[in-house]
């Protein structure tokens, strides 16, 4: 057999197999449902509020520690400015999250960054691409290292979707999360008008806050560098930028103090942006946490928000 004929057959088999995966991806029967319920799709509502809220406004950006543990209404009432809580999930990475808000910031706006200690600069590309599935604009916030990474991440998303669709078809179950139920947390309707996650308010908190994962091998330098660059750009737009340390449960803080001290030293050394307070300002008793070291309960969120307001006002905001 000639090489041309073999190549044709190989191409045909590739089209048949990968074509099946692509077809399922594009005609995903659950896409509409996911658009309504997926936590990644929460960006649609958050971004709309960001775009629609007039300046001067206060924008909060971080991972889930801000999503869970902020009472935006309290900030808005205290500082007399509209608040948009854009925090969703730490795994999106600093670059992506800061790109997310930068085009909608204008003169007089204030940004409060509160990234977690586990934040990475690049973030998880699959999470980012999944968000872009529901909100195509999110593709503009992504940056691939190279062409191969782009193919790989797109391929992974398609394969994962293919698997999930088959699994859901097999199980034939459709979950409709409700804010009033006492179990669900992450879904599109889980936020209030400001963007704060409130679905966990009526869920029972964990009796014991599990051990968080912090590695002393990790450095915040790259994330700080992203924040520095963002700060520089925002300075030219006359946008105020601040950083607050994330909240962290007491029991975990005791165990991770060394690592957090190291992170604080990195911030002191490399950060060009103003930092409000210190890590211990946001360490609270475990009873104020919902299900992990970064996730505050409603009450914990209020205490933490008061602290942010206090620190902000001390900076003669």
């Amino acid at each position, binding site marked *: *057999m*000639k*090489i041309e004929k*073999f*190549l044709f057959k190989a191409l045909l*088999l590739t089209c*048949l*197999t990968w074509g*099946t*995966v692509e077809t399922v991806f594009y005609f995903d029967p659950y896409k509409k449902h996911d658009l309504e319920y997926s936590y990644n799709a929460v960006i649609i509502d958050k971004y709309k509020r960001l775009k629609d809220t007039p300046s001067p406004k206060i924008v909060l950006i971080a991972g889930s520690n801000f999503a869970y543990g902020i009472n935006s209404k309290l900030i808005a009432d205290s500082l007399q400015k509209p608040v948009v809580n854009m925090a969703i999930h730490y795994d999106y990475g600093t670059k992506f999250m800061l790109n997310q808000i930068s085009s909608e910031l204008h003169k007089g706006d204030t940004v409060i960054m509160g990234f977690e200690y586990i934040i990475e600069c690049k973030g998880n590309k*699959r999470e980012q691409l999944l968000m872009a599935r529901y909100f195509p604009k999110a593709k503009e916030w992504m940056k691939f290292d190279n062409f*191969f990474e782009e*193919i*790989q991440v797109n*391929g*992974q998303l398609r*394969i*994962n979707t*293919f*698997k999930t669709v*088959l699994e859901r078809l097999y199980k034939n179950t459709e979950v409709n999360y409700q804010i009033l139920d006492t179990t669900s947390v992450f879904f599109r309707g889980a936020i209030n008008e400001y963007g704060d996650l409130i679905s966990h308010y009526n869920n029972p908190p964990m009796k014991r806050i599990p051990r968080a994962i912090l590695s002393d091998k990790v450095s915040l330098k790259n994330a700080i560098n992203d924040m520095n660059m963002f700060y520089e750009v925002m300075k030219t737009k006359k946008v105020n930028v601040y950083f607050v340390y994330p909240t962290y449960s007491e029991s975990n803080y005791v165990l991770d103090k060394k690592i957090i001290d190291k992170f604080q030293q990195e911030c002191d050394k490399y950060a060009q942006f103003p930092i409000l307070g210190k890590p211990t300002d946001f360490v609270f008793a475990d009873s104020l946490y919902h299900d992990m070291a970064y996730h505050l309960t409603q009450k914990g969120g209020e205490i933490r928000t008061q602290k942010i307001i206090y620190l902000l006002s001390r900076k003669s905001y």
Partner: protein
Amino acid sequence: MLFNSIEFLLFFPIVTIIYFLLGHKNRWWWLLAASCVFYMVFKPEYLLILGFTIVIDYFAGIWIENAIGKQKKWFLIISLVANIGVLAFFKYTNFAIVALAQANVAHFKLLDFILPIGLSFHTFQAMSYTIEVYRGNHKAEKHFGLYALYVMFYPQLVAGPIERPQNVLHQFYEKKNFDYLRVTSGLKLMAWGLFKKVVIADRLALFADKVYNSPMEYEGIPIIVATFFFTFQIYCDFSGYSDIALGTAEVMGFKLMKNFDRPYFSKSISEFWRRWHISLSTWFRDYLYIPLGGNRVGKPRQYFNQFFVFAISGFWHGANWNFIIWGALHGFYLVFARITQKQRTAFNKITGLEKVPFLLKTLQGITTFSLVAFAWIFFRGNYLEQSQLFHLVSHLFSNFPTLKEFLTLNYFLQNISLNFTLVEFLIAIGLIVFMEIIHYTQRDKSIRQLVSTYPMAARWSLYFLFIMAFFILGVFDKPAQFIYFQF
């Protein structure tokens, strides 16, 4: 470049198609250039290290061939010193620095560099060339490009099989045509290797990692379960790599040596080593064990040599005490088996086991598997602290449940399926069984050849289902490096 990467998915067809389009005379440089690109993806500057040993060994080969008397030996020594020197410097310097500091002999600063990928593999392959030329088993290669290709041939460059010049060099001179059956057979082997890696090894890794990443949290059965899964994980990982290497070479018309032959069906440790990482075992046998005296020396010396060779083999894997213990443990198994040979035969006779060969073979198989699996604990635990490794070994048989506890679903989910769902656990076990059935079936006939005889519709349906199973069951979230790449 990883075989399970997107880069390779593009690299392989491009290289292969151009390889077949080029005339025979031009193929060597194309393969050499492709091999350079393949290696440079890891760290381009490390190509210079490879280049250094290639130049030394190329000239050493010619000098050895032309030398008379003792000169031959000196040229061989130059080659060996250069190769072992590079290996020792990059792989063992930091280990030596730490050992000296721990013994309070001397304190030096640790060197800060990443180990060149596959260093132990291509260094050993290069050494086999000069040794074979020295022994007169192979003529020195005069074509520098072909010699470089012998060391750098990309399918086996970073994780073997560790080839011998007699097996490979002559193949570069032979004209390879596009042969449909051979090409598809090679592709099938590659697909099977990739399946073993992405679907089986990476899936089993989820179970093994759970315990080995937080060893202090587990006792007894979870450690046994995780070790069982790791035993198959490392086999699928490494033999998967070897299958892809052999398949890639086969597509282009080259035949590399078999590296695995159903090792977990072995009925003794010595049989295991004739079936596991064959290219390395035979390397140590030919170039270390036999020169040390082999079986020609007295029994005590033989035992020492065997133990020593296996300890060195462990050290070859990594500059870490765990690997040395792993190798030494295998050496101990082998020596112990030889010493107790008579007693074990007598035991089989007395108990009547000898008369029930199936039962005897099964017991031998289970014992061998358990000993091999136990030794893997040290291998897998190479990143662990001493206390963690000690915990794993000392708590292997502790905290066992009562039969009543053992039979509860809760116990099963927590300690046997390690908090994975029952379906996930069954998939993992099912994949192991499936793989071993395939391997067992392949004893007599090649499944690849068998599939080729099927009607087209059946063949294509099979290919389609196989690829779909690959997508559905594969672990793509965390593309993992091959375990043996670190060596």
